[in-house]
């Protein structure tokens, strides 16, 4: 399977099954396109790359492309194409379906928890899937006892996994700060003996950030996600305080201080864009202008009927916006004032193995969310939907049927992923998004997929640009 595209002056060819990515010139781009559109040639390559097959393909190419290139040029470029094919880095086979079939048989281990230490919030963000922190239920704070039990639960259920991730989430976790601190201390007392390494993270709106909190976060949290939507008017429209006032002026100075105190690493300033700021590249630029170096901005997750939700007719503008952002990314980097954008990060050489790439996010099996009362859900986005209640931290998981369903979700189980070039970069997408839009965890959210594909294209273009800079 091949995906090829042109972006910002680069001709890019992706071989999806091998993960190989090539920056090519026009002649090679045209040759690959010709072969990819020629079923007979592709079938022959699939069987065996013999001298006869090469000769036949070259003859066909000569007939069809001599209007544009000379025979000697075509011969030379074709020899490079054939070399890549023989090297299994172009038109390579898909070897992974049998592995995907076995994924569901692997033992279930839990390696990540989203701890909802607070079902309450001091902001009233209009798009919040937690509905001001309550998740369709009642307000509440996690007790230290429930939190400790959750940490015991992950240690006991994590098998041989060493690295255990625990995200303090909410609602707003700083509204239950004493419990957060105590749980980190507890985690540190049990990890060594259990042969584990807790990686604590925290997601906050910043309202309650102060020096004491920052100091603790910098000592204990491997990452901190700080929520702000960008420009003041954009942020304050969707992220008002409980009384209706904006939150921007209170939060920005605190976030700037936190980012500096973490040496501009190991954090993300994370925004949400909605239909009201489809020009979200301006918000990313705003973050960069404020001095933030680690930036993430995400499309809103919202029911179709919400006035701020992203619609099909918005998609083209959003895709263009990613292109604008990619160019800005390059421009600022060249000016010595670069920033990092979460969705433009891609690791082409040391990235995850194929198991990870096909098996999805792990929600409902290796990743679980815990409510203030200790109930377990497949992930934070399912919390409050009783159909997805998996059990609790005291008795463990009692819905093996649901866990099994989640374990079966992968890029091969979702028919929509079959012909998608981005499948090994998103690993089949978000089960919660899929459920919210289709009623099935094992499907896809098409608008999200379109954005994901564009982000992969931009990320790879940026790698190509980086390579050309290095030369």
């Amino acid at each position, binding site marked *: 399977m091949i995906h090829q595209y042109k972006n910002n002056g680069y001709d890019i060819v992706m071989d999806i099954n091998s993960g190989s990515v090539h920056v090519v010139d026009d002649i090679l781009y045209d040759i690959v396109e010709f072969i990819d559109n020629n079923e007979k040639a592709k079938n022959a390559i699939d069987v065996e790359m013999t001298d006869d097959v090469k000769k036949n393909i070259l003859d066909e190419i000569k007939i069809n492309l001599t209007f544009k290139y000379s025979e000697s040029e075509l011969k030379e470029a074709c020899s490079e194409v054939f070399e*890549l094919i023989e090297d299994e880095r172009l038109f*390579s086979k898909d070897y992974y379906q049998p592995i995907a079939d076995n994924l569901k048989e692997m033992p279930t281990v839990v390696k990540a928890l989203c701890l909802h230490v607070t079902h309450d919030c001091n902001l009233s963000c209009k798009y919040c899937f937690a509905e001001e922190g309550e998740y369709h239920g009642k307000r509440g704070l996690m007790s230290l006892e429930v939190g400790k039990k959750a940490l015991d639960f992950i240690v006991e259920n994590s098998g041989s996994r060493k690295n255990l991730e625990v995200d303090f989430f909410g609602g707003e976790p700083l509204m239950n700060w004493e419990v957060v601190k105590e749980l980190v201390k507890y985690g540190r007392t049990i990890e060594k003996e259990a042969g584990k390494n807790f990686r604590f993270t925290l997601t906050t709106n910043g309202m309650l950030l102060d020096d004491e909190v920052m100091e603790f976060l910098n000592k204990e949290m491997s990452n901190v996600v700080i929520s702000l939507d960008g420009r003041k008017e954009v942020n304050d429209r969707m992220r008002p305080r409980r009384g209706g006032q904006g939150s921007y002026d209170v939060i920005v100075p605190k976030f700037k201080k936190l980012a500096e105190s973490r040496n501009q690493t190991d954090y993300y300033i994370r925004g949400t864009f909605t239909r009201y700021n489809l020009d979200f590249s301006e918000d990313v630029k705003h973050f960069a202008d404020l001095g933030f170096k680690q930036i*993430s901005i995400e499309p809103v997750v919202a029911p179709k009927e919400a006035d701020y939700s992203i619609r099909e007719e918005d998609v083209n503008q959003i895709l263009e916006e990613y292109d604008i952002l990619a160019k800005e990314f390059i421009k600022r980097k060249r000016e010595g004032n670069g920033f990092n954008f979460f969705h433009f990060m891609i690791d082409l050489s040391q990235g995850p*193995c194929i198991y990870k790439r096909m098996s999805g996010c792990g929600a409902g099996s290796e990743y679980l969310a815990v409510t203030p009362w200790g109930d377990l859900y497949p992930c934070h986005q399912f919390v409050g939907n009783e159909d997805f209640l998996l059990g609790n931290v005291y008795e463990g998981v009692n819905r093996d049927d649901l866990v099994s369903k989640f374990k079966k979700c992968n890029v091969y189980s979702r028919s929509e992923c079959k012909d998608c070039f981005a499948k090994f970069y*998103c690993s089949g997408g978000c089960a919660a998004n899929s459920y919210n839009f289709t009623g099935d965890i094992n499907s896809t959210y098409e608008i999200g997929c379109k954005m994901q594909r564009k982000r992969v294209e931009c990320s790879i273009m940026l790698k190509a640009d980086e390579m050309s800079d290095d030369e």
Partner: protein
Amino acid sequence: MKHVKSLNEKTFKDTVKKGGCGECQTSCQSACKTSCTVGNQKCENNK
């Protein structure tokens, strides 16, 4: 090669043998929380 510059050498097939240890980060845990991206993660298999 004259017409091609590859951005990577290792292929997914190379990761079949030693892969699957599960030590890498959970996809959406630490930054986005609303989508699933694995392409940007690092392999943490130290074996």
